[in-house]
């Protein structure tokens, strides 16, 4: 038997997924930037 989708929950899931991907990516970029800056400073010393 097929279940009826819960549109409210799918809306919540959809928006959570979209913003989690964006926030996660931004966090990854910031972390990478900090690491690279530190590495560059050490190399310049």
């Amino acid at each position, binding site marked *: 038997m*097929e279940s009826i989708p819960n549109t409210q929950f799918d*809306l919540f899931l*959809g928006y959570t*997924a979209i913003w989690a991907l964006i926030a996660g990516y931004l966090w990854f*970029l910031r972390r990478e930037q900090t690491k690279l*800056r530190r*590495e560059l400073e050490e*190399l310049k010393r």
Partner: protein
Amino acid sequence: MSIETFVQHTIFRSPWIHRVLPAFTSALVAFAIGYVFMVTPLERVMGAAQKIFYFHVGSALSAYGAIALVFLSSVMYLVDRKPAWDLMNEAASSIAFLLCSIVLVSGMIWGHSAWNVWFRWEPRLATFLFLWLIVLSCVLLRSVLPDDSRRRTLGAVMGIIAAVNIPIVIFSIKLLARNEQLHPEVVAQQGLQDPRYVTGLLISVAAVACLSVWLFFVRLGNAALRAEVDAHFRRRG
């Protein structure tokens, strides 16, 4: 001035990119979410989950824009072999991958609500999945191969292959009759009759576009930093 120094000066020190763009983007995204949830009417057939549509379409259009930039930088790199084009290619591929992932995930969730299936092997969905895989390989290629001209050339070639897929994705919807596939042709079939749907869509498209531009600059800055670190290592031998 090397590209690394140029990016350091323009991206990391520009208040427009560093302060104004993130602030403007955050405000626009908040406004878009508010508009979608508080002003746009509830769609009668699909219900609440239809509100995924605004950011799903916005992400798809921005993904096409990012892949267009990948195409431009790939062609330019193959023509004049300047590392600046490769950095742009790297940043644009990365953003394109993020946006394609958002389109795929949000589309599957919306599809589950609207059609009661997460995925179906029909032209639009299958071609988009194929595009996502190509963009994924563009990103993976850079992390696997060492930084040399071979990696740059392969990245450019993959970028062109990804861009060639865009018209296929767009026109794939015409391959089957409308009653044989689930993915709708909203704009072409003159959907969005209520002007509030159109306004919501335009605001969301603008918000995701601004967000993509901001992320692109952050990613470009990181790519330039990485290039500078590699250059230091090479100089040291």
